[in-house]
């Protein structure tokens, strides 16, 4: 059924269609309407689940971890300060190999207080062992939640996944979304039945102490799980496309990159704007393309390596900044292509922090700059875009 809904409702419908059994969540702007909608689904009986109104985000994740270890499919949602408060238990969820699925409504970190979009919260969790999917539309949010359970619950993967919605731009903007029939989702996503769970009569310790001569093997296996996730993402999306008739681009969603002189790399909602800019610039005869990072973890290294040989310049747009280094996506892209024979010029553009608009005009200027830089090399590898007091004018 086609409905008009916000990204947050798309998350709630996604969790409902995936038949989440335990939901533990704590409200935070701009995630709140996900929690409210799910509480409503549970209270009306539309969703047969237990809703735990926890007293904080750390407890939300800790409760999901316990419930998932006891064999229940769990879901939670958070944002920004809430996600970073969870940091310890995010590591716990992946270390315990629990395929928990969570929406993070990506929002800037305080101080100064700011409730609008950037990706600092999400990027700061890149080492926690979670799969991370950035979404471009509300449809993609709903679909990716359903796919994430199927990807992560595979015995070879067994890792948690984070679905990222941009604050307000997706979370509070309504779009038409196709909400699939429950029976169709059920045929795609079977009930969760882990090989091992907490069970009376089968005394086992989950999360025991291990010695240095055992610990690395656990980490190695989690690494293999993330490697397997890469293949799983592609395979599950094929299956999804077969049943539901749509797909969202695997790990790296390429738009008009085949003959592009210059490619922009971006993640999240800004990629939708960038597609329009690509079209407009191509009409003017400039061969530009867009590579949208859909999976930030596992990172699409192979896809970037094959892209490197086909283009002269890569403009990496980061909506966060790692102090003392550069944008995280920029450093990842560069490390991906270092081993390639032909390496395009790569430049980092830091833009849109704390909800600052990244307009079509700004994107066009980035492309124009990159077309020049790709020929003569970048003087400054990292440029902050549209910041007061800096010489270049972007608007």
């Amino acid at each position: 059924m086609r409905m008009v809904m916000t990204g947050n409702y798309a998350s709630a419908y996604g969790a409902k269609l995936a038949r989440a059994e335990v939901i533990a969540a704590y409200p935070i702007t701009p995630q709140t309407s996900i929690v409210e909608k799910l509480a409503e689904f549970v209270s009306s009986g539309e969703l047969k689940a237990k809703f735990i109104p926890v007293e904080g985000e750390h407890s939300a994740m800790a409760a999901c971890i316990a419930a998932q270890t006891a064999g229940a499919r769990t879901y939670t949602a958070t944002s920004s300060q809430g996600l970073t408060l969870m940091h310890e238990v995010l590591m716990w969820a992946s270390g315990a190999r629990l395929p928990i699925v969570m929406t993070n409504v990506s929002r800037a970190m305080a101080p100064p207080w700011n409730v609008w979009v950037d990706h600092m919260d999400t990027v700061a969790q890149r080492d926690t062992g979670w799969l991370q999917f950035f979404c471009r539309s509300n449809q993609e949010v709903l679909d990716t939640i359903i796919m994430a359970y199927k990807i992560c619950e595979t015995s070879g993967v067994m890792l948690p996944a984070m679905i990222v919605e941009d604050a307000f731009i997706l979370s509070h903007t309504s779009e038409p979304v196709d909400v699939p029939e429950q029976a169709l989702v059920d045929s795609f996503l079977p009930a969760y039945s882990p090989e091992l769970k907490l069970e009376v009569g089968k005394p086992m310790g989950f999360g025991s102490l291990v010695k240095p001569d055992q610990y690395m093997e656990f980490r190695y296996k989690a690494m293999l799980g993330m490697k397997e996730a890469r293949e799983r993402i592609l395979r599950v999306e094929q299956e999804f496309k077969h049943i539901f008739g749509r797909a969202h681009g695997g790990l790296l969603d390429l738009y008009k990159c085949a003959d592009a002189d210059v490619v922009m790399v971006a993640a999240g909602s800004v990629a939708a704007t960038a597609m329009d800019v690509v079209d407009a610039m191509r009409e003017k005869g400039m061969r530009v393309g867009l590579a949208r990072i859909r999976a930030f973890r596992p990172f699409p290294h192979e896809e970037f390596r094959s892209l490197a040989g086909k283009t002269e310049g890569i403009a990496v747009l980061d909506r966060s900044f790692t102090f003392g280094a550069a944008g995280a996506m920029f450093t990842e892209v560069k490390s991906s292509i270092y081993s390639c024979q032909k390496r395009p010029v790569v430049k980092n553009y830091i833009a849109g922090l704390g909800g600052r608009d990244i307009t079509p005009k700004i994107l066009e200027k980035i492309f124009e700059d990159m077309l020049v830089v790709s020929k003569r090399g970048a003087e400054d590898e990292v440029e902050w875009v549209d910041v007061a007091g800096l010489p270049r004018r972007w608007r």
Partner: protein
Amino acid sequence: MMTKTTIPVEEFTFPGSTGCPGCGANLVMRYMLKALGERTIVTIPACCWAVMPGYWPSNCLKVPLLYCAFEATGAAISGLRAALDVKGVEDVTVVGFAGDGGTVDIGLQALSGAAERRTDAIYVMYDNEAYMNTGIQRSGSTPWGAWTTTTPVGTSHGFKHESKKDIMAIMQAHKIPYAATVSPAFPEDFVKKIEKAKRTKGFKFIHALSPCPPGWRTNPSLSVEVARLAVDARVFPLYEIDEGKVHITRKGKGLPIVDYLKVQGRFQHLTEPEIDSMQKIVDDNWIMLLLKESSGT
């Protein structure tokens, strides 16, 4: 003639716990599981008992065990209960088993949340009155006057000058259906209270005194004796709060506090006036408890 005890014979802990000789927490776990039986799931945060079951893949408990993050016990029991509920499993007791630091300090938020949500579970705090797993640092549950490595004697500040948090009062303020103090020196009283907690629906809290020979600087062979002295000197009265009503289950002999203090190295530095002031605190607390009992609150 031997009197028949009411303590279940079956054991739910294998030998092989890595606890120190004379560890009170070993006895607390043992009596608790005897009272609860096989249909129990336990979750344990960072504390001595996170280490005591042994290294993977060994485990000395005969019930399923979930290790959880230090501050997360209250959340973990809520998650476990929700999963069992959604799966239609009703006859399993969920237990959070945490130390005093993981309860009155870093875990207090999650504990309060679980109590407020009326999570159907038993929360057991084994109280060795300091961060013992990390090597005897003060906690909010360390009593006034005690030496710890972070309240070193012989410095300008000296021993701990702040009193112990009254966790039972904190739990009573949450209007939970059942809370009780237990001691490994009185196992029959201990088992009876755990059995009552198991029968009661909702959130239950158990405060267990847990003597710690390395931390209290006591002889490992005297752990049960020290626990008994705590009750007899009324430092740790045995009582329950049943639907808000206080009931003292053992009045103790009313021994002077010095009898309890003198067997523990952690109190050896105290002067006579300091011991007198400790006695006054104990006497005042005891009178308050008697008043609570007689007034039905």
